């Protein structure tokens, strides 16, 4: 999965929730990614974050830091 796509999608989600107060925006955007993204997409986001998270909006960056990747060994 391309990093560009992951970054664009994370930014889009952050953009929607940024209309809300900061704490709600962070919680809402994070929960959205947990609810709808396959673990490997979250892992991709985490990996991109580990590389510095270039291109992520400030809120998307905060979201990336907040979410926990629920790895599933049997899916790996």
């Amino acid at each position: 999965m391309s990093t560009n796509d992951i970054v664009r999608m994370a930014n889009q989600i952050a953009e929607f929730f940024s209309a809300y107060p900061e704490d709600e925006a962070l919680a809402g955007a994070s929960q959205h990614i947990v609810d709808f993204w396959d673990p490997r997409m979250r892992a991709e986001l985490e990996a991109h974050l580990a590389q510095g998270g270039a291109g992520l909006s400030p809120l998307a960056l905060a979201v990336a830091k907040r979410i926990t990747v629920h790895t599933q060994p049997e899916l790996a």
Partner: protein
Amino acid sequence: MALIDDVDFGTPARPSAATVTLLIDGAPVTVPEGTSIMRAAQEVSRPIPKLCATDKLEPFGSCRMCLVEIEGVRGTPASCTTPVREGMNVTTQNARLERIRKGVMELYISDHPLDCLTCAANGDCELQDTAGEVGLREVRYGMDGANHFDAQVKDPIDVSNPYFQFEPSKCIACSRCVRACDEVQGTLALTLEGRGFASKISAGLEMDDFFSSECVSCGACVQACPTATLMEKSVVDHGVPTRSVETTCAYCGVGCSFKAELKGSEVVRMVPSKSGGANEGHSCVKGRFAWGYASHKDRITTPMVRESATDPWRKASWDEAIDFIATRFKDIQARHGKGAIGGITSSRCTNEEVYVVQKMIRAAFGNNNVDTCARVCHSPTGYGLKTTFGTSAGTQNFKSVEQADVILLIGANPTDGHPVFASRMKRRLRRGAKIIVVDPRRIDLVRTPHIEAAHHVPLRPGTNVAVMNAFAHTIVTEGLVDEAFVAQRCDMVEFERWRSFVSEPENAPEALAEKVGVDAETLRAAARTFAAAPNGAIYYGLGVTEHSQGSTMVMCMANLAMATGNIGREGVGVNPLRGQNNVQGSCDMGSFPHELPGYRHISDADTRALFEGDWGVHLHDQPGLRIPNMLDAAMDGSFRGIFVQGEDIAQSDPNTKHVQAALAAMDCVVVQDLFLNETAAHAHVFLPGTSFLEKDGTFTNAERRINRVRPVMAEKSGLSEWETVCRVARAMGYPMHYDHPSQIMDEIARLTPSFAGVSFARLDRDGSLQWPVNDAHPDGAPIMHVDGFVRGKGRFMITRYVPTEERSNRHFPLILTTGRILSQYNVGQQTRRTANSLWHPEDVLEIHPHDAEERGIVDGDPVSINSRVGATTLHARISDRMAPGVVYTTFHHPLSGANVITTEFSDWATNCPEYKVTAVQVNKSNLPSDWQAHREEFVAEHYRVTEPAE
């Protein structure tokens, strides 16, 4: 006419709480006030002879066959046009009436060819029946006078329409066809021209035949005709059918009920069912006539396999094909992990077929990589309505539109996409309701006979949310909010936040007008019209959802409905017009990777435990991949096998070259379908599917109506789709077994609260049910959120307008938007294999005259359309329906490559592709695009089938 007829009561029912009691031939009868004598007589089995009357049409009173005597009334009034009165004493049959009727009948027959034995309507002719009923034994005037049937004078039979013929010499000028076109279909294509003896039915102008006229081939006139004047060619060719099976159309999300009329197991015609809740006896050209694909020579009825997608196909036994799939899928999982395979369910398949595919993926594949074609159409509807209202479904039944005062139609073209519902909508509009059309194109409903939109908002593609915010701003700042409704039904904290947001100056129509491309006063006027309506109803289509802000837009509409109090009763609501016949059902059945059946998130431990207990497996608690994610993961090598049920992602999904590359990168692609479609070109296994005429199950339409789909013939492949899937699951190691599809529905009901009361037996008894069907709604729920929202309090969402990243620029100055046309359906796999292609043999590019002139393009020129991801060549159609700067095409023909141009951009919440906004350049060209040129070669290579060795 329909041979296997319902009782025809002669005039429509008149629902009324007040009743009237009268005597008919001495028999007491009590009927609703306003009922005709003719209908009341039929109620007590005293049918009155009739020719111009049918209960599908308003009474006309022209044929003079239905005369009756009424005590105390002079003369013999027509029973069809005379309403009942309290205490009336009616006589339907005596010597006087018999004499009058015979006399009238003689006049009809004196100008009718007496060729009953060789007539196509023999045995199915109301004129013939009525002659028998009135006891006609002679025609005193003879047959030698002036007439319309002698060879020297008769008009030729009009056979221009591919599905029915018009034989003027058999016409009795009853006007039923004209009235059906007016009242039922609302096209007003037919007229009775001339006077007296010269009267004749005409389709359009003098030079028109049926094909060239404005007739949309809905079949209403054919159904209404009491003689052989308008007759299905299939009946002319094969004779009248002898039995019927009630089933459900497999085209759009309206989900019309039909009687398949047959001889043996051969379908002779499809007749819309009067008792069908969705269509109430009406149909469109697709459902009524375009069913021939089911027996088309291109059908593949034997499983096929091949090692590589570039090898020729090899026919195989079911066992071999299923073993092949299981071996490959298990091998992929062993090498790349359980999550390396997945599948897609189909909105063209039944609920039961869809359910077993998602079950196979979750239970046998051991992951949640299941998605459905709703991903590319109405997934934002699911997200948006669930967030605001609490459930993922439209709020109304179709009939509700009859109570609407203002219809807000956004991003939908129902006269083409949902024609039977459009007819219902047009009836309401002709009776005085207003319509506001929000669409970049001037669709038919902006101005069509007897209908003119109160407002047309020709917005720039991609600015839906801005338009809705401008509407909301107007409503809030001008004091048009239904404060009482909001206070009682909605979360006030969320409402106040929303009110504050939309009140901001940046959401004022004046601030947004330039972005939207529509003047502020039009935006304000449209908003006021909607807010002022006693009943305001929102209907929408893919012009709403297929945007980067598709989900935001759905929430905008939900906000608007709540703010104006337009939820929870007839005539209002937020209503998605679903694209395919079972989009609603495929979503209900747990086809999304994050949800189990009934829209319950996979992370919910209680729900998982329920399914785990029933299925006997452990389920993963994480969402799986969506279709675009699967394709992306295929490109990086982590997703390598897919089971595609009845969908053609290589034609329907955006950025075709990316889709093709992803499919080509997989180790095992399985396609279950009727034909070798574009996706099958990349497949390793082809499993023959079943047409709707072979299926046994249920479809759920856009109004949540669960309808039975009944088989009218055996499966041509010898195996049902659900059984095929069960065999694949078993080969993968998971025991999945059912003896009958009703057992699948029983399992769905057992595990899904909104389906708790649904069963085949119940559907067979009640005809249809609209979910939820459970203890709270034992007979279903035609209208949702009546006393409260499913989520409790309605939730207003803040909907900031975020322009799409896809923008026109100097390289790609035009915006392409895509859609569908009346005669074709989706990727055209079905309709292209019928005579419907006579109306639409190719996809064309609609372009505004100014844009065409700038480029030196004249109508019919081949033009190249280029976007940043691809190019294709189509013929241009110059049309001022388009706004300048916007071009439009359809995607019904694979060679068109419409989706070679569309991009990877998608809705922020759901990944629904942004089909409706692609920046393009258009130039004259006389060459196919590289992709088109390559396709022929590609097809030749990938569709080869080897014959088995002797």
